[in-house]
């Protein structure tokens, strides 16, 4: 099976490309990138062909594409790929506007192609085990979650609103939100958020706090801040504390690491040794195509999480609780 990658704007493309080239059953055949220099470099790196014209790229015999363009460009790339009958793995967030996401889902349905959203944390063995434990009732009924998805400020197009759609809230709410929906099959009832730019001189928010109530009555806090200092030993974290009627459960998804005190560069670094989540995500996507099954992470999953992000922005602007339907 031949697969292509649309854009290396998002750095996750590097990992997906590596996963594809690690496999013997698929071939990373073509790369299209708006940035020709980057596209050519990547084609050389991954030993495949760069095509400068997206139409030419989509006219090739690739069966599927992985889209890692800037958030606001997901819409047009997904719709064009769908029209060309390519199955799609799209980097999160699905889009920057709810209406865009809906149009993308519709285009893929009409074309009969798979649209999977890249929420790789679902493929973390830690999360797989925790989900099974919680679903088996290990801590009883879950009443509350206190979660963080912190990061370093990524810079680049991530802080250009036109391309990213927003800052840390856009970047980080969706991961936790997707995990909660995946574990509990519960939806968000209402959202309150305080967002701000307090760490850097940016046009987008770099920190904040989101407070949710779910349909089940569960209460949730999500901290999506780019609050990691420059000396932080890794890129960030995914931490969740679950409070249940039988007990509590805490997870630190990236705790599987050793510490490296690096005198050469005068810094402390985490050396992760956890299993690669992206391998699971890419394997699942390929399996979806092979067996022609419904994607495990659908466009609707992408849409629901985006709706929460949008509600957070609205709440922050109004300083009011925003109800979701």
């Amino acid at each position: 099976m031949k697969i292509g990658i649309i854009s290396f704007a998002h750095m996750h493309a590097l990992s997906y490309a590596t996963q594809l080239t690690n496999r013997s059953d698929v071939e990373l055949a073509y790369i299209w990138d708006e940035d020709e220099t980057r596209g050519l470099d990547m084609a050389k790196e991954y030993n495949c062909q760069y095509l400068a014209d997206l139409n030419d790229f989509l006219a090739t015999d690739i069966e599927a594409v992985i889209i890692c363009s800037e958030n606001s460009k997901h819409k047009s790339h997904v719709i064009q790929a769908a029209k060309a009958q390519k199955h799609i793995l799209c980097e999160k967030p699905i889009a920057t506007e709810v209406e865009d996401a809906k149009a993308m889902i519709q285009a893929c349905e009409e074309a009969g192609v798979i649209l999977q959203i890249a929420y790789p944390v679902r493929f973390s063995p830690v999360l797989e085990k925790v989900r099974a434990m919680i679903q088996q009732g290990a801590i009883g009924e879950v009443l509350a979650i206190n979660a963080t998805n912190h990061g370093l400020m990524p810079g680049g197009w991530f802080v250009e609103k036109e391309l990213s759609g927003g800052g840390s809230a856009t970047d980080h709410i969706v991961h936790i939100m997707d995990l909660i929906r995946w574990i509990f099959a519960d939806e968000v009832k209402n959202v309150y958020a305080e967002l701000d730019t307090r760490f850097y001189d940016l046009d987008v928010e770099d920190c904040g706090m989101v407070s949710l109530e779910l349909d089940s009555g569960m209460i949730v806090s999500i901290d999506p801040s780019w609050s990691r200092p420059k000396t932080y030993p890794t890129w960030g974290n995914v931490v969740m504390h679950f409070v249940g009627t039988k007990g509590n459960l805490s997870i630190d998804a990236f705790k599987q690491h050793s510490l490296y005190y690096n005198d050469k560069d005068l810094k402390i670094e985490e050396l992760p040794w956890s299993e690669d989540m992206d391998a699971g995500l890419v394997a699942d996507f390929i399996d979806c195509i092979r067996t022609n099954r419904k994607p495990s992470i659908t466009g609707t999953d992408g849409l629901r999480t985006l709706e929460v992000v949008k509600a957070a922005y609205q709440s922050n602007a109004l300083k009011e609780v925003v109800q979701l339907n």
Partner: protein
Amino acid sequence: MKIALIGAGKIGKRHLKIWTEMTDVEIVGVVVRQEEKAQKIEQTYQVKTYRTIAELLQTEEIDAVDICTPPYTHLEIVQEVAKAKKHIMISKPLAVTQKEAEEIIQICKQYEVQLLVGHTLRFFPEYENAKAKIENEAIGRPGVVRMSRGVPYPSRDHEWYTDKRLSGGLFVDLGVHEFEWITATFGQAERVMARHIKRVDQAKNPIEYGLVMIRLVDGTVVHVELSWAETKYRASFELTGNKGMISYDHDEANPVALDLHHGEEEVDLPKSMLRDDPYVRQLTHFVDCLNGKTSSIISPYHAVAAIQIAEAACKSAEEGRPILIQKEEA
């Protein structure tokens, strides 16, 4: 220094033990309402006890009174003690409501007695140190402040503890620790949004849990997790700013780990690995304040502000909306 104590519950006994060990302090009397309990206290601590505050105040020469009773009793007791012109040390929370807390301050002003509020968290070295660092701009401009505090559900023999009208409930009783520290360290709150859960666990024991978001006047975003749904003590903070971060987790800060092969064996592992635990440090500071050596590091106005945040959190959780904090006139 002649000190009298009112109340001999958990905190009262803890204070009493410290008072009796202090060389420059004389405990002249302890007010214990129940006769039976009073006898026990007399025997254990070798102190005189009184059934009523009036009796104590009439009989003994006293410099200051240490009030260790449940918060719903504070206002009435302060009235009686302040009128007698005795300085006051009082356990947190200062009162169950902001209104009562403000009245307490007014009364102490009127009778010109000191009001020393026992926000013991301020004497935990990790919190004291972090506050000093922040004042030295160690983290630059504050961005996001995260704090957590959790304990098992307060036991049934202290029923007032979990009765919201008597203790203020989770947000007041547990929350004021963090709320006071936040106010003293970062300044006034502007807006509060809170969510709250109260349920019974599978063994039919109650559990209570709250998530509080506070926007401070200076823009700092604060999150406080408060839990009466734990099996053991839990406390942590993470203070971030544009120049750095200070983080602390009680679970990762214990210098001694003890594991015994035979669980039955009794080994007395000290609760605190400090020579002077935070309670000793607090009461020593209060004595210094009473002696005029220094003034209290705890402003009664911060104690009020903490209750104000807690009340706003209760209201927010009940009404499902953010609550604006009325500006203090100081």
